[in-house]
C-alpha cells in the first residue's frame, strides 16, 4: 500500500489463522502501546500474508519506506518492537523473518511465487474499499462496462487460457459463453465458496484477504452473461470471510460498483450471501444450486447443465472463488500477460494451501508448470528435519497421494491427472515416513462415506463397504483378497455414481494401493504398520537401558499403565496401554520405543 505520510506504519495480519495464533491480541497490544506512550504511528490491518507458519505476522514500514516483517510476534513481544523499532528506529533483529537488503531464511519463501490472485492479500486492508481502489480495484469492471462487449470479455478469457480453479479445470471462457448464449431473460451467477475439502483454505484466505477481487470478478461475469443476480455460497464455518464479504458488498453498492444502474450503464446487479449448512457434496454445482433453493443438497443428472438450466431453472454460471479472483487481473493486464505464465495446456498461476508435515506451511501461489518438488522444497522448505518425505496428497477426498518418484512432474491439470490424483482446488498436504498410507485412505473414505448424499447406491453402500474393509485392515484384521476387493469396489463406484463425489471417492484408496501396495500387504499379511501409526498394530515399551526412572512418563500416563520405582527402569502394562503416545512425547531420554 502506498504510504500516506511520513509516519511509521505497523500492519498486523488478521486472517482466521493469524487470529488463532493470537494476532487480535497483538493488534490491541499495539493500540494500547501507541496510546499509552503517545506514539505517532499508523496501525493497519490486513489479510493473510501467506506465511502461516510464522503467524502472528507484523510488518513495520519505516518513514523511509523500508519494510521489516516480524514473525511469531506474540502480544508479549509488542512492547519491545514499539520501543526499539517504531520509536527507536532500530529493528529487533532476532524476531525478523524478512527485511529488504538482508539475507533472512524466509526471503526464499516468495522467490518462486507469482502472486496474481493473491495480489492484494496481506497487502491491503480487506475491509477498506478505498485501499482496494487505490490498488487498481474496479478498474477492470469499469473497463468492461465502458469499453467492452460481453463477447470481448469472453474472447479475452478464452485467449487467457483460464480454467476453472475448483478442480475440474473446465475452460472459463467457454463456460461463460454457454451461459451467455443460453436463452432467457433472468440469469444468475454463483460463487462457490463452499470449501469443504479437508486440508484446503485457499478460498477462505482469498475472501478474508481480498473480498472485493472476487466480487469484482462476479460483477464482470454478471455483465458478460447477462445476469441480474448473484450468490456467494459460503461455508458457515468461515465467519470472518462472511463478515468481510458483507462489508465489501455494502461498500461496493454504496460506490455504485454493484446494485442499480452500475456506473450509469443501465446494467443492474444484486448480490446475496448464502451460508452453507455443512455438506461437502454441495461443492458439486447442481447440489449447490439445490441448496440455495432451500432443498437437500443432492446432485442431479447433467445435462441440462446449469449454464442452460440452473438456479430456479434459469441459466446460471457457477465458478470457484479463485477463478473469479483471477478475472479482474486478466481484464486489467490482458490475456497475453496471463498466458505468459504456465504450460501449454494450463495457463496462469495456482494457489495452494500447503500443510501437513512441512516446514513452511502456508498459502502460496505459483505459476503452473513449476514442479511439485519446487513447491514443497523451495517454497515450503521440505519436511521437518529428521523425517523423510513420503507423499503429497493433492485434491483432498477426490484426489490422491502422489509418491516421491513423481515429485518432478510439472503442476498442470493433465500431468497431475496422469498420476491418479487431481489438481483439485489446491489442498496440498505433505506426508512423511510417520504417516500410514492405509490410514490416510481410511481417513478419506470415512469422510466421503459420511458425506455421500445417498442418492446413488454404489456411492452410498460401496463407500461404506470400502470403509469397513479399510477399518479392519488398520485394526490388524485384514484378510487375503481385501486389496483386490477394494480395487473392484472402487472401480464400480467410479463407473456407477452420478456426481463428482462418488466418481472420485475411491481415488485416495486406489492411488495408495497403486503406489504403496507394500504397506497394505504389511498390514494384512504381517499385521504390521510400517509407519508405526495404526494403534492396533504397534506396541509401546520402555528401554530399561535408557530409562533413568525419572517417573515423568508414569505421571503423564492417563490410564496408569506405567509403573516403576523412582530411579529404576519403568514398565508398561500392555493390557492397560491405550497407545496415546503421551509417554513417548514426555520422555526426555528417548527411552520409550514403538514397534
Amino acid at each position, binding site marked *: 500500500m502506498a504510504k500516506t505520510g511520513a509516519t511509521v506504519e505497523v500492519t498486523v495480519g488478521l486472517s*482466521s*489463522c493469524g*487470529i*488463532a*495464533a493470537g494476532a487480535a491480541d497483538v493488534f490491541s497490544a499495539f493500540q494500547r502501546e501507541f496510546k499509552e506512550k503517545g506514539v505517532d504511528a499508523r496501525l493497519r490491518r490486513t489479510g493473510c500474508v501467506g506465511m*502461516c*507458519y510464522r*503467524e502472528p505476522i507484523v510488518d513495520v514500514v519505516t518513514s523511509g519506506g523500508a519494510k521489516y516483517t516480524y514473525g511469531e510476534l506474540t502480544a508479549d513481544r509488542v512492547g519491545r518492537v514499539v520501543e526499539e523499532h517504531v520509536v527507536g528506529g532500530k529493528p529487533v533483529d532476532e524476531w525478523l523473518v524478512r527485511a529488504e537488503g538482508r539475507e533472512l531464511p524466509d526471503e526464499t519463501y516468495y522467490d518462486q511465487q507469482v502472486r496474481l490472485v493473491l495480489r492484494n492479500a496481506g497487502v491491503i486492508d480487506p475491509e477498506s474499499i478505498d485501499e482496494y481502489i487505490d490498488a487498481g480495484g474496479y478498474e477492470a469492471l469499469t473497463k468492461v462496462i465502458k469499453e467492452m462487449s460481453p463477447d470481448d470479455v469472453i474472447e479475452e478469457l478464452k485467449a487467457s487460457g483460464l480454467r476453472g480453479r475448483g478442480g475440474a479445470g473446465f475452460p472459463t471462457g467457454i463456460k461463460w459463453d454457454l451461459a451467455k448464449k443460453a436463452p432467457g431473460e433472468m440469469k444468475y451467477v454463483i460463487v462457490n465458496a463452499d*470449501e*469443504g*475439502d*479437508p*486440508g*484446503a*483454505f485457499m478460498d*477462505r484466505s482469498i475472501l478474508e484477504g481480498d473480498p472485493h477481487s472476487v466480487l469484482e470478478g462476479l460483477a464482470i461475469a454478471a455483465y458478460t452473461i447477462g445476469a441480474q443476480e448473484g450468490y456467494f455460497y459460503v461455508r*458457515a*464455518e*468461515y*465467519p470472518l470471510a462472511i463478515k468481510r464479504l458483507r462489508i465489501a458488498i455494502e461498500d461496493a453498492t454504496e460506490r455504485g460498483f454493484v446494485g442499480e444502474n452500475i456506473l450509469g450503464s443501465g446494467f443492474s446487479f444484486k448480490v446475496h450471501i*448464502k*451460508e452453507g*449448512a*455443512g*455438506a*461437502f457434496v454441495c461443492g458439486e454445482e447442481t447440489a449447490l444450486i439445490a*441448496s*440455495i*433453493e*432451500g*432443498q*437437500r*443438497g443432492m446432485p442431479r443428472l447433467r445435462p441440462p447443465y446449469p449454464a442452460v438450466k440452473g438456479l*430456479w431453472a434459469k441459466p446460471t454460471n457457477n465458478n470457484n472463488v479463485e477463478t473469479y479472483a483471477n478475472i479482474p487481473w486478466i481484464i486489467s493486464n490482458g490475456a497475453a500477460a496471463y498466458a505468459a505464465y504456465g504450460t501449454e495446456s494450463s495457463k496462469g498461476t495456482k494457489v495452494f*494451501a*500447503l*500443510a*501437513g*508435515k512441512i516446514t513452511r*506451511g*502456508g498459502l502460496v501461489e505459483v505459476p503452473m508448470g513449476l514442479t511439485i518438488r519446487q513447491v514443497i522444497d523451495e517454497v515450503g522448505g521440505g519436511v521437518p528435519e529428521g523425517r523423510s518425505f513420503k507423499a503429497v*496428497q493433492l485434491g*483432498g477426498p477426490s484426489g490422491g497421494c502422489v509418491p516421491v518418484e513423481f515429485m518432478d512432474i510439472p503442476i498442470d491439470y493433465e500431468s497431475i491427472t496422469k498420476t491418479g490424483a487431481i489438481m483439485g482446488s489446491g*489442498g496440498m*498436504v505433505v*506426508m512423511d515416513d510417520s*504417516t500410514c498410507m492405509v490410514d*490416510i485412505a481410511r*481417513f*478419506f473414505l470415512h*469422510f466421503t462415506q459420511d458425506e455421500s*448424499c445417498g442418492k446413488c447406491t454404489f456411492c452410498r453402500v460401496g463407500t461404506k463397504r470400502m470403509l469397513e474393509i479399510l477399518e479392519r485392515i488398520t485394526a490388524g484384521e485384514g484378510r487375503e483378497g481385501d486389496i483386490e476387493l477394494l480395487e473392484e469396489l472402487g472401480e464400480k463406484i467410479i463407473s456407477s455414481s452420478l456426481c463428482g463425489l462418488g466418481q472420485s471417492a475411491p481415488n485416495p484408496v486406489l492411488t495408495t494401493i497403486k503406489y504403496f501396495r507394500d504397506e497394505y500387504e504389511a498390514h494384512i499379511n504381517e499385521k504390521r504398520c510400517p509407519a508405526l501409526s495404526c494403534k492396533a498394530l504397534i506396541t509401546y515399551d520402555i528401554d530399561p537401558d535408557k530409562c533413568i526412572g525419572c517417573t515423568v512418563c508414569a505421571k503423564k500416563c*492417563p490410564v496408569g499403565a506405567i509403573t516403576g520405582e523412582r530411579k529404576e527402569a519403568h514398565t508398561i502394562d500392555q493390557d492397560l496401554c*491405550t497407545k*496415546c*503416545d*503421551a509417554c513417548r*512425547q514426555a520422555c526426555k531420554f528417548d527411552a520409550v520405543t514403538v514397534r
Partner: protein
Amino acid sequence: MENMVAQDERMAEYLEVADEVAAKYAGRRGSVIPVLQQVQERVGYLPPEVMKRIGERLGVPPAQIFGVASFYAQFRMAPVGKYVVKVCHGTACHVQGAGAITDALCDELGVADGATTEDGKFTVESVACLGCCSLAPVIMIEDNTYGRLTPDEARKIVREYGD
C-alpha cells in the same frame, strides 16, 4: 411437575422464535435453510415441534423441513453444552495427531466424542476442516480457535473454560 411447566414455557419461547424468524422470510424463495440456521442460533437446536412450526409458517411440509435439517451437518436435533468444543479432523490435523486431541478431551471431560457432559457445560464434537491447516492440530470453542496443540494443552484450555 414444576419441571414440566418450565419445559412447556421454554417450548413456547422456542415457538415464538420460530414464528418471528419465519415471518421475516415470508414469501421468499429458498428460505428454509436460513430460517433453520437463525432459529438454531437462538434456540441452540431444532426440536421437532419447532421444525413443525417452521413448516407451517413457511408453507412447507414438515417432512421436507426435517429432510433438510437432517441432511446438513450444521443442524442439531438435540441440545448441546454451553461450550461446543470443535476438534478439527481435517487432513492436516489428522496427520498431526487430531485423534490424540479428541482422546485427551474426551478423557478430560469424561464424555464420548459427540456427547455432552452431565453438567451441560461441554459438548465434544469432531468436525471436518476448520481451514487453519498450518496451525494443526486445531480446536475451536465459540469463536476462538486454538492451534499447534498438544493433548495436554487441549486439556488445559477446556479446564480454563470450566472455571
